[in-house]
């Protein structure tokens, strides 16, 4: 704060320096700096709110008292010493006060033929809205701007030739005012200009307004003409059709409409569906798909017993009602929402309240919140009516979606930070909800899709008018802190996670150290001052954190805060040519994507437009929203989207493999009240979903890529499901959701390894509840291609590599889970064969066949662990012995795993580990 005060004082001194042309550059420079420091919403003005951190006297610059300091006010601020600015300052002579001049056809013609070309030719390089660098704060591209003038006052007074600065400048009579600077006007031109001033500066209105309207497009070089009719003819921009499936030759195979669409596709290519998967395989498939967990032996037995026609539907309804459904499907959305609990990028500052959003997402899926509602709450929950404090709190938490993207907290220029934040939001919303890569249009028109840069900045205006509250405190690596949003006192929300006692002790010790450091050193010494400032920041962070937890580590009501969004000061964004701050062009009105049109969304009024945006996106008329979501649902049930590029429905994306089906699903989704569960239910009860994964039948040659889904594709389990299934088989999976996240007990940059270790320690909770710090994903998730949380990830990678094998062979967590699994199996009733059977059932959902049983028996009898492989081969660098990211980090605190295990259990542990490791465990077929 002190540093800022100092610099701003300097800037202020500059602002008050005598106004002279020679000083203009300094002033302009000072203004730029001022914006960098203060203009958080990047509107090119400084509002009273933005002045909060600045010295009070700066407010004096707002001379017209509208709560905003504008460039003209700054540039024309009266000097402290010396002469006041020549003529009257701009603000004292508002343009509106000058009487308009009467236009005649003659004066109009004169202006258009002589003056406009002259201004364009000789002045606009420096004095128009489109100038690379506006000189002297003077624009000459409208009558108003001529009258308003620049730093040296009005450029011309109507009728007053001799008193007009413009005339003086072009006459080259003054030594310090000669325009244009490089080449004097010809006598004819000079004469025309004098004549124009004499006439009273006639400026044909149409011309003026046409200059305005072209501003937004001609401002950008390389703007291509978009043929909107043609653009809108692209499949993804046309509304989806709810047509019935075409007739098929085979009349008996299909269970319902979905199957008929698929079958028609197969018949067209000459492919035939394979036979059905056996019931146990179907149960495993559907249980994993809907809950991310394998079926229990009891569930398998129950399903085996109930052979009624309704047994499939009964299973599906049971799974949809399970809280595990939200944990599974919520995670799918968290991939799309680029959910993480830290900022990533340079400083990686933690977001201690991010977990509230995670829990909100999980609950929304469990409650089957209509998808349109689901989107609206995330985009504009704060603006939706609520009937209770609970609802109010949930609405706030939902907007956390906008706040938790990756951010570079150390960005010095506030405007850069603001534009980057808006860009990140546009990227997340457009890819995640619309399947479009709108961010490509930040610097230039979209290369492939009909998205001009002006559309991008129309959206950017909405987000720049939003007050995004991502939390974090000023401190090392963070010059862009923000407060959080307090949750209503009466709302039923958890206070937060339990602070680990080790963490608490560390924090308190750290505070003492800081205290001591701050006290050492001489008063007034610059070194000491810096130290003091740093100490103050760190103390601030620690105190804030400690104040939210009591002595025993329980979260206090003070911790009931959320990341989220609120309304900021509504304003339109300035188009930045090539995305560069220095190249701010005309403002574009806030709005949506032209190619889709306004639909039935109400026009944006005096607010940010976020609510209108939410309505526009979640509108049943929006051709993309329902399609994109239906496609994502399909992806999670069949392994590939009908549009394979799930986050890109644009021209560079893939075309749908079966558009009629996709459209049917999208319209069905909307027709069923945007119910995700309904659509999931319909799909998993289809015949297609019941097919075997066997790679035979006519489809093999007719459709080798299985585009028509003549068989169920083989799919690898997601990272979370692999880990959860291991813990479930081992019987150690904690099914009760934890309260909050261990990250909630941290604050500041994620640099202190000793603080991170207890946070990142593996806990037997479902994987969705593991801490998700950017660049520090839990090893178990990272190795199996968990979503990279800095990006919108609709469709994860599915690799099959040796590092995964190493993980399953050697990782400490896997070994411990194997021990628990072995102990569980050995404790179950029955003999050795029964135990082996039980292990197969728990891990793979089936009994072993004869060959397998024999192989396992032989293994158990012959097994000898031998002397462990030494670490003699690898000599770790002593400087780095404390692994930062190594396999040890998650389990640093864990007890040695196998010390006390008897040989029998060790043999069993080695055996059951092979069940975790085998392909069948990892794949669902």
């Amino acid at each position, binding site marked *: 704060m002190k540093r800022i005060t100092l610099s701003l004082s300097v800037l202020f001194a500059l602002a008050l320096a005598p106004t002279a042309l020679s000083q203009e550059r300094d002033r302009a420079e000072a203004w730029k700096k001022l914006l960098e420091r203060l203009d958080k919403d990047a509107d090119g003005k400084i509002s009273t709110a933005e002045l909060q951190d600045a010295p009070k006297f700066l407010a004096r610059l707002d001379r017209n008292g509208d709560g905003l300091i504008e460039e003209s006010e700054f540039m024309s601020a009266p000097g402290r010493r010396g002469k006041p600015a020549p003529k009257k300052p701009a603000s004292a002579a508002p343009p509106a006060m000058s009487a308009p001049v009467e236009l005649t056809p003659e004066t109009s013609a004169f202006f258009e033929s002589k003056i406009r070309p002259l201004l364009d030719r000789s002045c606009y390089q420096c004095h128009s809205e489109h100038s690379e660098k506006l000189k002297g704060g003077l624009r000459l591209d409208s009558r108003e701007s001529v009258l308003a003038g620049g730093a040296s006052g009005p450029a011309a007074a109507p009728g007053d030739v001799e008193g007009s600065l413009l005339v003086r400048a072009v006459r080259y009579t003054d030594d310090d005012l000669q325009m244009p600077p490089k080449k004097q006007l010809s006598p004819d031109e000079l004469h025309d200009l004098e004549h124009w001033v004499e006439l009273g500066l006639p400026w044909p209105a149409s011309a003026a307004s046409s200059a305005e309207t072209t501003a937004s497009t001609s401002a950008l070089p390389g703007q291509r003409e978009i043929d909107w009719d043609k653009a809108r003819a692209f499949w993804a921009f046309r509304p989806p059709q709810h047509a019935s499936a075409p007739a098929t030759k085979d009349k008996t195979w299909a269970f319902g409409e979905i199957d008929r669409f698929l079958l028609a596709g197969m018949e067209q290519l000459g492919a035939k569906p394979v036979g059905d998967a056996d019931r146990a395989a179907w149960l495993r498939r559907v249980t994993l798909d809907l809950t991310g967990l394998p079926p229990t032996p009891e569930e398998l037995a129950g399903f085996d017993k109930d052979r009624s026609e309704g047994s499939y539907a009964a299973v599906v309804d049971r799974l949809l009602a399970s809280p595990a459904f939200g944990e599974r499907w919520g995670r799918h959305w968290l991939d799309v929402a680029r959910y993480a609990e830290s900022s990533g990028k340079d400083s990686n500052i933690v977001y201690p309240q991010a977990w509230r959003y995670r829990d909100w997402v999980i609950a929304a899926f469990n409650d089957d919140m209509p998808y349109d509602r689901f989107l609206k709450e995330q985009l504009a929950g704060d603006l939706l009516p609520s009937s209770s404090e609970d609802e109010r709190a949930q609405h706030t938490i939902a907007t956390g979606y906008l706040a938790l993207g990756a951010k570079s907290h150390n960005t010095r220029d506030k405007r850069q930070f603001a534009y980057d934040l808006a860009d990140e939001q546009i990227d997340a919303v457009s890819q995640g909800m619309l399947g479009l890569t709108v961010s490509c249009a930040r610097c230039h028109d979209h290369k492939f899709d009909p998205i001009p840069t002006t559309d991008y900045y129309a959206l950017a205006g909405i987000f720049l008018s939003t007050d995004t509250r991502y939390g974090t405190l000023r401190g090392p690596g963070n010059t862009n802190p923000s407060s959080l949003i307090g949750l209503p006192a009466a709302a039923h929300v958890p206070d937060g996670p339990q602070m680990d006692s080790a963490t608490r002790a560390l924090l308190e010790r750290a505070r003492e150290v800081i205290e001591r450091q701050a006290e050492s050193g001489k008063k007034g010494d610059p070194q000491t001052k810096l130290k003091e400032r740093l100490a103050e920041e760190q103390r601030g962070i620690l105190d804030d954190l400690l104040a939210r937890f009591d002595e025993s580590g329980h979260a206090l009501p003070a911790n009931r805060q959320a990341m989220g969004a609120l309304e900021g000061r509504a304003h339109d964004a300035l188009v930045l040519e090539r995305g560069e701050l220095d190249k701010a062009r005309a403002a574009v009105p806030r709005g949506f994507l032209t190619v889709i049109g306004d639909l039935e969304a109400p026009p944006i009024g005096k607010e940010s437009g976020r609510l209108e945006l939410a309505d526009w996106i979640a509108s049943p008329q929006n051709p993309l929203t329902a399609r994109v979501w239906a496609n994502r649902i399909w992806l999670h049930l069949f392994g590939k989207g009908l549009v394979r590029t799930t986050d890109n429905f644009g021209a560079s994306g893939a075309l749908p493999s079966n558009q009629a089906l996709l459209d049917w699903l999208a319209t069905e989704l909307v027709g069923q009240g945007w119910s995700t569960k309904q659509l999931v239910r319909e799909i998993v009860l289809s015949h297609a979903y019941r097919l075997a994964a066997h790679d035979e039948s006519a489809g093999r040659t007719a459709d080798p890529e299985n585009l028509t889904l003549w068989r169920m594709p083989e799919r690898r389990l997601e990272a979370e499901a692999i880990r959860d299934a291991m813990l479930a088989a081992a019987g150690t999976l904690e099914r009760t959701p934890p309260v909050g996240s261990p990250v909630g007990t941290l604050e500041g940059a994620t640099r202190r390894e000793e603080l991170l270790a207890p946070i990142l320690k593996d806990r037997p909770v479902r994987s969705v509840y593991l801490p998700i710090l950017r660049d520090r994903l839990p090893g178990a998730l990272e190795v199996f291609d968990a979503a990279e949380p800095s990006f919108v990830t609709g469709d994860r990678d599915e690799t099959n590599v040796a*590092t995964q094998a190493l993980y399953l062979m050697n990782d400490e967590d896997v070994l411990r889970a194997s021990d628990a699994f072995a102990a569980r199996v050995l404790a179950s009733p029955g003999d050795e064969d029964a135990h082996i059977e039980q292990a197969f059932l728990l891990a793979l959902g089936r009994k072993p066949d004869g060959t397998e049983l024999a192989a396992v028996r032989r293994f158990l009898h012959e097994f000898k662990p031998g002397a462990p492989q030494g670490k003699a081969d*690898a000599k*770790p660098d002593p400087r780095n012995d404390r692994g930062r990211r190594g396999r040890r980090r998650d389990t640093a605190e864990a007890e040695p795993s196998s010390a006390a295990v008897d040989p029998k259990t060790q043999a069993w542990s080695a055996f059951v580990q092979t069940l975790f490791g085998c392909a069948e465990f990892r794949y669902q077929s």
Partner: protein
Amino acid sequence: MNDAHEQDLPSPRRRDALKLLSCGFGYLALRSLLAQSAMAQQPEAGPLDPKQPHFPPRAKRVIYLSMAGAPSHVDTFDYKPELAAHDGQSVAGKYRAGAVLMASPWKFAQHGKGGLWISELFPELAKQADRLCLLRGMQTDVPAHPQAVLMQHTGSFQFVRPSLGAWTLYGLGTVNQNLPGFVTIDPPSGTGGAQNYGSAFLPATFQGLRIGSGRGGGRARRDTEEEAVANIHNERLSTDAQRKQLDLLQSLNREHARREHDSDEVEGVIQSYELAFRMQAELPQLLDLSKEKPATLEAYGIGGEGTDKFGRQCLMARHLAEAGVRFIEVTHGGWDQHRNLREDLPRQCKEIDKPIAALLADLDQRGMLKDTLVVWGGEFGRTPYAQNGDGRDHNNKGFTTWMAGGGVKGGFSYGATDENGIEAIEGKMKIPDWHATILYLLGLDHERLTFNYAGRDFRLTNVSGEVAKEILA
């Protein structure tokens, strides 16, 4: 050997992919099951076994130094005296509005017998000038990082395609079956992520093994050798016991494969375990730099400020190359100087200058440079006109990469950009040409290195690609 196992041999009903290979994947696993000790016999014919190239190769392996973020060519390897003369001149008419040329703040001098012009930012590398073959007419399609990085690595940014390393492995196999044939050290997690070392529709076994944190050449932290490959040791079992455990696991996998009619995925899993097991024995030693002489460590800049991380990675790359890894990539990030060029670029260059110079000298001294192709380059170049006063913007129209060793001319410069360094005008090399040339040096004809997938023969260079024969030694 054992009749009972005969039926487990890969069945003839395999997808086309496997027909191209000399033998199915399952064979390797089967062999190790049959063998008393896994290490007793080397497998005879697997997909990773060395294969005959199309014609005699000039290079046997590749070390690809990927400069993520796109280094500025006019400040490093593309000397433009006229740019200095044009400093401050506008090229707005032809390029973006307000484009004003900015002279390189650094001096260039000629080096070596070939007289290559190299900027003062690379004092050490300049001493190796006669080994470098500068490619100064490079071009790529899109001036945006994710697309260009993918283009550079896979030849396509719109579709998921196999990476250059995967194609190389597919074409040549690898000589050391105990190591992955394709290793990528610290690749970026963004800009296409795993796709950049992925195998796409090629069998998964051709995918690159990632070593390190995968945060893409971040400069602040490095991984220790111990951390570089997670879980490289088992803390409980002897090697023999673990082999027995693995044998059980693989028998389960084969049972499963049989039931599932030879699924590619199961084959991939089987392969991944065999490779993992062999890697356990060999990889830690290769990544262990503690046995290196202090002089070697010093030469690579290990322990030096700024050079430590990349120095280690370069030395690891040499170890891997020596051990028979076919394709090694090392990423160094942070080259995106939109601003702070004067401050950041010297630091960037310093971080790699000494390590690369040492790598070239070391390879040469070991007689390996003649058949190791070292490739250096970013995904595109930067504009000779300024951005933000002290920065340069993306430039896909002209940039420089270089190659060294492996059959290319040393002290040689091929291709040129215009007087200011904006666009390539001579010896133009687009990414498919660059790929075709790399494959050619490896003895592979880019038009014949194809893989049939979904009814079409795919190749790395898609429908274009011309070998720059001018650079062949």
